[in-house]
């Protein structure tokens, strides 16, 4: 089956071991990091496997193209280490089992096409909003990327189900598909590459599409002149180059991504998964530090890329007087004015 491409030598010769040293949730020095990585590469147990919050960040910290995070998740499964409780894992497994509604949603899309993953709440946006009216929608469990199993300790399920999902999309004859959910895009670029899974169409990140759309309508844009914080989501760590589109979009719409401690590579998790791992104190601590950092930066908006991050952090952000908003809504604000 699909094997992870990881190079032992590359890791051994690493001068930094940033993958673990820079981890925001496990306090670890370079020597320990080296020892633990060695153990893991040899398939042995490590405390890292037990303490990992599955934030994906080590995948970005490794500048040498190895895949420390994918290694961790594979080992967790191999060794039966559960990052989250059994009933939640069961929920994760069941959530992607197709229902009758998914069958109805299987047909009917034509290029240009956008995949909305499992977020039906945005169907209306993409079918009614003028900016996106050219797009046809694919949605539902037959198009679901399954990357979430990196959080629940059963990543083999991704490899088991993903090829079928890719077939489902490819069988429609699509050459290019825009992915609304960052996680889907990362799956079909980073994860598939690491495991040598073929993707016979071109995945386009929603931000790239959004940027081009805005560029076309640049004359209609009323700059927001607002300071914003950007909440990076976990899968953004798998495809950091896409981050450029975020900055370009912000530039176009007059949003200033204020420098702050917990942005870019130092971003903190939204907290959702940490709560799901039942680490309540850590969850509270991470959210509090993150939102306080936004407050100190004096931002007006907290901009979310991922609907799941929005669900887990928006209430806390709003409580502190910062407006939580999805990336596309911020762009629509710049195009249609603040009364929208």
């Amino acid at each position, binding site marked *: 089956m699909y094997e992870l491409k990881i190079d032992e030598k590359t890791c051994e010769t690493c001068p930094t071991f940033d993958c673990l040293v820079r981890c925001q949730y496990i306090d670890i020095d370079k020597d320990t990091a080296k020892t633990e990585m060695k153990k893991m590469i040899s398939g042995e147990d490590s405390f890292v496997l037990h303490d990992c919050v599955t934030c994906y960040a080590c995948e970005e910290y490794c500048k040498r193209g190895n895949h420390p995070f994918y290694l961790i998740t594979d080992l967790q499964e191999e060794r039966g280490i*559960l990052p*989250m*409780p*059994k*009933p*939640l894992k*069961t*929920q994760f497994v*069941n*959530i*992607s*089992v197709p*229902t009758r509604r998914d069958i109805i949603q299987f047909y009917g899309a034509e290029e240009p096409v956008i995949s909305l993953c499992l977020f039906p709440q945005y169907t209306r946006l993409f079918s009614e909003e003028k900016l996106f009216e050219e797009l046809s929608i694919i949605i539902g469990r037959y198009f679901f990327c399954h990357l979430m199993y990196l959080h629940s300790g059963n990543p083999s399920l991704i490899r088991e189900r993903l090829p079928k999902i890719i077939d489902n999309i490819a069988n429609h004859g699509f050459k290019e598909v825009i992915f609304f959910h960052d996680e889907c895009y990362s799956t079909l670029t980073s994860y598939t590459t690491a495991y040598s899974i073929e993707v016979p169409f071109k995945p386009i990140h929603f931000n790239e599409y959004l940027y081009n759309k805005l560029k076309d309508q640049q004359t209609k844009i009323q700059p927001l002149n607002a300071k914003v914080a950007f909440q990076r989501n976990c899968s953004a760590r798998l495809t950091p180059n896409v981050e450029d589109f975020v900055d370009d979009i912000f530039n176009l719409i007059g949003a200033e991504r204020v420098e702050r401690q917990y942005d870019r590579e130092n971003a903190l998790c939204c907290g*959702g998964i940490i*709560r*799901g791992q*039942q680490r*309540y104190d850590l969850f509270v601590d991470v959210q509090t530090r993150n939102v306080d950092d936004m407050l100190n930066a004096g931002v007006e908006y907290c901009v979310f890329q991922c609907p799941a991050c929005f*669900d*887990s952090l928006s*209430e806390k952000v709003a409580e502190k007087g910062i407006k939580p908003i999805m990336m596309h809504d911020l762009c629509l604000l710049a195009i249609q004015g603040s009364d929208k």
Partner: protein
Amino acid sequence: MQSIYKSLTKIVDEEFVSNQKEELYIYSQDPGMMEPHEPDFVVMPKTTEEVQEIVKLANKEKIPIVPVGGSLSLSGLVIPHQGGIVVDLRRMDQVLEVNEESRYIVFEAGLTTGKLKAYLEKYHPLLRFSIPDAPPSATVVGNIVIHGQGRLTQQYGFNSDMVTGMEVVLPTGEVCKIGSGSVSPYWFSLAPLPDLAGLFLGWFGTTGIITKMGLKLYPKKKLRDIEVFAVEDPNLVPDVIQRVTHTEMSEDIFTGAQPYPPVFKDIIMIGILLTGDSKEELEFKRKMIWDALQCHIDSKEGGFMMMTPDVKQDLLEMPTSSTTRFADVKKGGGFEYCGPIIPVEKFPEAFTRLLEITKKYGITFGNAGRVIGRSHSMMFSFGYPFNRADPENIERTKNALHDTNVASLDIGGVPWKPEVPAQKMIMEKMDKSTLELMQRIKKVLDPNGIMNPGNWEVE
């Protein structure tokens, strides 16, 4: 019959008396699956005096009389099995008094839970009552006379435990006050008098018609939130309930299990509601509850669910419309359930029986349980959606309901608001002296057997 119609129109404004087919049809059934039976008249009185005159008429003519609230028990408790007069009490829906200091309310018997909720929110925002999961059209008294439960049941017991007084029209036409209101102008308590309220609670209108009620109100906190603890193994549920009730930190504790949608499949959810007047209070309570369940978290057997805001909203809603929506699961417009009151430790057994019965009959299910008191007992519902337009499906569901009643009694529980066949099962199992006492009480109060006949009746 025409003379009775005429007599009724002399008691109640003619436009609120009907003997027309359409009203008789509608009042012949409830949304459950018990066999319908038409009344001869439907009448909607406005005052206790009118109720009294109707009862006197029925007693004189020896014709059955059935008091009706929202008709939502689903167990056919207000189906007029022997015809007669249906008394729809919903025109009597005034709030008569709210005592903020002593935290009680006095109201008329036709007041709906929806309207009472709205009334308190508007005029007494610091007070609340135990809102049941029934639709807002259920009447407060209707819910209480069947020993209903609500959002405050884990804290304060059955909703019927919250009664402070009543006004009742006896089957022979006398109007009686029960509780402190019989001695004093204040309806604050049933104690310290002999507890006569028990003569009317749980009797399904077979001993008299309640026309007014006094009820305890409780402090309403500013904030509400919910945590849902999920497990896969039903054997863990009693322990989880024990640990959470021990903290005394939650408002309401309920259980839920259903095979659909897939995200809820194969797990049992224990909903734990929290209230607080400040964020600090809320967070303190939340932390206490998380700590209380740490052992189940450590074993990885249980965990607090991740919820989207709309799921949370659904679970916090009062009354919760998702309970009602269960009727449309199969696009069939109906659901039936048996909700026995069981000892908490019997949860695993009840759950196993539920799975066995649904498998046997090839039907889907929804389980909703509610902890009563600090784990003093719980309601465990075996809920089955059915298709009103499919007689075969109805038959299967009826059989499942029968098996469920048997199972409920088997495991040591008592079916809640039992339909007539289940009442018979209960009475068969009941201590004979107790049964005789029940029948004697009924005979004394209702010598002509006019009150909701067919219910709590030995053949």
